[in-house]
């Protein structure tokens, strides 16, 4: 930061705030994570139509919607959108979203779910699990 307090106060310099590069993160979270999701399915030997649910990190509903669209999932696959109720709960978002799907009966135990987490770092991970 090289500006004086007076310059900041009087608006002749922008406040030195931390900002997310939202568009860059969106592009990565959708199109790069779509590749990771497909890789996780391949490693698990599972096809998209075998899934009961897609449980992504609940960062932003627009990411979830576009990521689900890029994966071209059949209508039978439930897409977790717990963010609508809880907002972004950070590292808790995937387990909370999965619990919500099970507790509300949207998916059944024993079905397969593709989990994919992504966030600060930028770090990511994906796996196919059996719903508890």
């Amino acid at each position: 930061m090289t500006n004086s307090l007076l310059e900041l106060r009087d608006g002749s310099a922008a406040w030195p705030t931390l900002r997310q590069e939202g568009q860059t993160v969106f592009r990565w979270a959708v199109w790069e994570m779509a590749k990771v999701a497909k890789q996780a399915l391949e490693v698990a030997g599972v096809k998209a139509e075998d899934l009961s649910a897609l449980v992504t990190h609940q960062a932003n509903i627009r990411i979830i919607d576009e990521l689900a669209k890029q994966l071209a999932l059949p209508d039978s696959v439930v897409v977790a959108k717990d963010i609508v109720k809880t907002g972004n709960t950070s590292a808790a978002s995937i387990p909370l979203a999965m619990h919500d799907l099970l507790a509300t009966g949207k998916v059944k135990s024993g079905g397969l779910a593709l989990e994919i987490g992504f966030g600060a770092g930028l770090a990511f991970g994906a796996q196919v699990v059996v719903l508890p």
Partner: protein
Amino acid sequence: MALSKDEVLAGLAELVNEETGLAADAVQMDKSFSEDLDIDSISMMTIVVNAEDKFGVKIPDEEVKNLVTVADAVNYIADNQ
């Protein structure tokens, strides 16, 4: 084979329509994506990624904020084919 600017505009209008439902003829060169067409930054990025596929042009993230009007996008795509 490089597309003409009119062809790029028509292609871009299709992408805008697919993403937002806006009629293709609303997508005119002088229109601002955000102010006139009400396209937010996330929809803009989706349109940009789809345009990269459609036109075979790379549009880096740092360039996206310079694409304020439809003309900016058409010219960038046409010039980088």
